[in-house]
């Protein structure tokens, strides 16, 4: 008995020795069904995840129960699907039937049931990927495109309509990361356009049933697109280059004509323009400078011209002798005469009236710039109170006075009138070259000797008429004694009051002094020669001023002529056509020989 108890104790010890080792045996962990899938809706496989085994060898078994049946069935196939799987073949698979599946883990300690899972095979279909995916390059009007074709997985029976598959493909270039996906519906062919020339493409296809899961992507089909030339693109490139070229030309043209365009589009606003006004000067210089430039050269008249216009006094020459003595006069010339601005007059009181120059038109004065105007007899300077009176005006007044018998005086505004030459019409009125206006001796104090003057004029004209057959030279037969008259004052506009000045030879007159040498023109020789009367100082008239006596003219004429002519020709600056000069000389009667290098006699 005691032996049996000992054996029992031994046995129990043996039994419990594994526990005494320290390992705790427990029930197996709860397994979990991960998923069940059917590739063709005819069979399906379920996989589970085993839990802890609890230290003991654990067996797993799968049990299922069909809908509306209480019969529990065990998994028919544990191997086909791999480890921890259960494969249901066709015979065991019912569609549209609810399966209740449970996995049981069993070990020595006990068994553990997993959570049941209800599945309906219809909704767990995940087909295999499509097969035989092929890609071909096809040409459509010289443009290539890819034609992808595939086959449904061979297990899926689409032919009988049991399964309807929807396909999808994706494509990418070799080396890219992003795929381009295209749904393809139920068709098994797909075209891809817009390929890059010479690129390599990879294509994959997958499918799914109308109510199920997507399959895995098929193996990539690789294809290389051949090089092709996109004609349309090249045409556009050409058009682009052409238009760019035209654009460049346009821009260049616009740039070249930018100024004209600017003026065309935005015409410049005319600004005020004042002649002689300098903006820069206004900005920089003083106002005086600006306005001085504004003033210009014409206004106000310069002093030189101004002085020319001035007539200080009028000389009236009353000849006492028959012979006329060429008077010296201060003849204000134009340019050459401008140096003689002195107011003194050698010729005072002598024969200024007979000067033709006084009556010549002013226009001719401009032509004969630089010429010497000659005056017969003498020219008196007239001192006009009003210098603004134009020479023309004076001239006219003079002529006017001559016409009027009551005009008392002969006024010879010497300046501009000197270069004035009488129009031909006036010549006969004035008679010969120079005119002398001389008062009668009887009335030396008379200021207004109208009749006297008139008579003188008449006599003068008679004399002139009488002297017509005289040689070409100008000479007056009868010369009366000269008396000097001084302008006392100017009355009105056209009258000058004169008073005689004593004409003693001793006295001379301060006005008699002449700095210039004057020669009287005798005549015109041919076309380019002037006959001058050599000046010789007479007893009376010879003062500082020398003037020729016409009686002495003969022997010297020729010599003078040539020289003068030559001299005339030597000064082209002053000399205009010779004929004109000579005519004017003839009209004037006096030539200032100081200009020309005349040999002195």
């Amino acid at each position, binding site marked *: 008995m005691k032996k049996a108890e000992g054996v029992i104790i031994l046995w129990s010890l043996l039994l419990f020795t594994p526990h005494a080792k320290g390992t705790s045996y427990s029930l197996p962990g709860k397994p979990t069904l991960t998923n069940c899938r059917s590739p063709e*809706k*005819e069979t399906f496989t379920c996989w589970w995840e085993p839990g802890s085994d609890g230290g003991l060898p654990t067996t797993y078994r799968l049990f299922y*129960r069909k*809908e*509306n049946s209480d019969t529990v069935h065990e998994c028919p196939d544990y191997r086909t699907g791999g480890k921890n799987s259960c494969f249901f073949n*066709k015979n065991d*698979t*019912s*569609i*549209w*039937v*609810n399966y*209740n599946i449970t996995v049981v883990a069993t070990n020595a300690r006990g068994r553990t049931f997993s*959570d049941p899972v*209800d599945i*309906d095979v*219809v909704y767990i279909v995940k087909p295999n990927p499509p097969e035989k995916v092929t890609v071909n390059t096809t040409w459509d009007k010289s443009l290539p495109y890819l034609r992808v074709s595939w086959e449904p997985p061979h297990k899926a*029976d*689409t*032919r*009988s*309509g*049991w399964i*309807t598959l929807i396909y999808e493909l994706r494509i990418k270039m070799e080396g890219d990361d992003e795929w381009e996906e295209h749904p393809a519906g*139920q068709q098994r062919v797909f075209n891809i356009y817009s390929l890059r020339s010479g690129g390599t493409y990879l294509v994959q296809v997958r499918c799914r049933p*109308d*109510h199920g899961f997507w399959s895995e992507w098929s193996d990539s089909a690789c294809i290389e697109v051949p090089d092709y030339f996109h004609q349309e693109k090249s045409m556009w490139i050409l058009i682009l280059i052409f238009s760019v070229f035209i654009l460049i030309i346009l821009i260049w043209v616009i740039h070249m004509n930018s100024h004209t365009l600017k003026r065309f589009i935005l015409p410049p606003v005319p600004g005020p323009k004042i002649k002689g006004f300098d903006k820069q000067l206004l900005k920089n210089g003083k106002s005086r400078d600006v306005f001085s430039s504004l003033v210009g050269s014409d206004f106000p008249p310069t002093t030189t011209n101004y002085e020319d216009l001035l007539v200080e006094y009028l000389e009236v020459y009353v000849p006492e002798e028959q012979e006329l003595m060429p008077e010296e006069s201060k003849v204000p010339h134009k340019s050459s005469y401008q140096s003689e601005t002195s107011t003194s007059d050698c010729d005072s009181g002598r024969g200024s009236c007979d000067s033709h120059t006084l009556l010549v038109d002013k226009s001719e004065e401009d032509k004969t710039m630089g010429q010497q105007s000659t005056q017969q007899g003498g020219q008196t300077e007239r001192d006009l109170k009003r210098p603004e009176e134009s020479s023309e005006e004076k001239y006219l007044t003079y002529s006017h006075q001559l016409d009027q018998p009551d005009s008392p005086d002969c006024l010879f505004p010497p300046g501009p009138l000197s270069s004035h030459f009488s129009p031909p019409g006036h010549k006969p009125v004035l008679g010969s070259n120079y005119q002398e206006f001389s008062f009668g001796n009887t009335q030396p104090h008379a200021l207004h000797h109208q009749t006297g003057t008139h008579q003188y004029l008449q006599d003068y004209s008679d004399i002139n008429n009488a002297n017509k057959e005289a040689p070409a030279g100008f000479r007056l037969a009868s010369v009366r004694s000269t008396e000097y008259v001084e302008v006392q004052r100017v009355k009105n506009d056209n009258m000058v009051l004169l008073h005689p000045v004593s004409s003693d030879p001793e006295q001379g007159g301060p006005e008699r002094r002449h700095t210039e040498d004057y020669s009287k023109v005798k005549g015109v020789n041919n076309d380019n020669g002037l006959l001058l009367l050599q000046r010789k100082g007479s007893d009376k008239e010879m003062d500082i001023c020398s003037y020729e006596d016409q009686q002495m003219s003969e022997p010297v004429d020729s010599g003078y002529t040539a020289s003068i002519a030559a001299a005339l020709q030597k000064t082209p600056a002053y000399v205009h056509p010779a004929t004109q000069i000579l005519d004017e000389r003839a009209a004037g009667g006096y030539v200032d020989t100081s200009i020309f290098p005349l040999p002195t006699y």
Partner: protein
Amino acid sequence: MTAHIRPVCAVWVGMVVLCSKLSCMKAASICSNAQAGCHFLSLANLFDRVIQHSARMHGISNDLHSEFELYFLPSKNQVGRVTRNCHTSNILTPNGKENAQRIAREELTEVILKLLLAWRGPLWHLHQSVAQNHDFNRFSSNKSLEMRDMVHELHKGVQKVVEKMQTLGIISTSVGSLASPEAFLTSESSEWRFMKDYDLLYCFRRDSNKIQNYLKILKCRIVPEHGC
């Protein structure tokens, strides 16, 4: 009450039959001679249309079922779930491909028609129930309504296909019971009334799938050249 219902139902059935016959005859007379202006639909086209219709119906039922699961979340611990019995389970339907291919065309056609017929009433009630239930939003009730109408349309469409097949001589004229009283009566069985809406929806989802699949099989068996 049943005594009154029976003659009324008979009259109503007769009227329905008469009307449908008339309409069918009308349709037959219009295009019987294949006149110009009459679109002659081939059997394949008809099948395609019907199949599309059934696919859409199934899609809607699937959506509605998902919505139901959100709202109701039937506990998975329910054991009684497995014992759920759809009222159409008495209709013998092939449960596999071989079975479906083995079955005769006429049987298959009849099965389809039976199924469609069996669901007309329940869906009408389901819609009522969903519309009245404030837990559901408007989209759910719209879907239930659409489902109800689609069953009707699909039934008519399948009937047209059957007629076409019969005229073509593909199937025998034995399949002609457009609305057999037995079928009507089976649908009248009150089993489904005791079912919950969720279970009804579950059953309908499955049955619509069956209908779609059977139609596809039928098409590929009869007109295989078009997309099978």
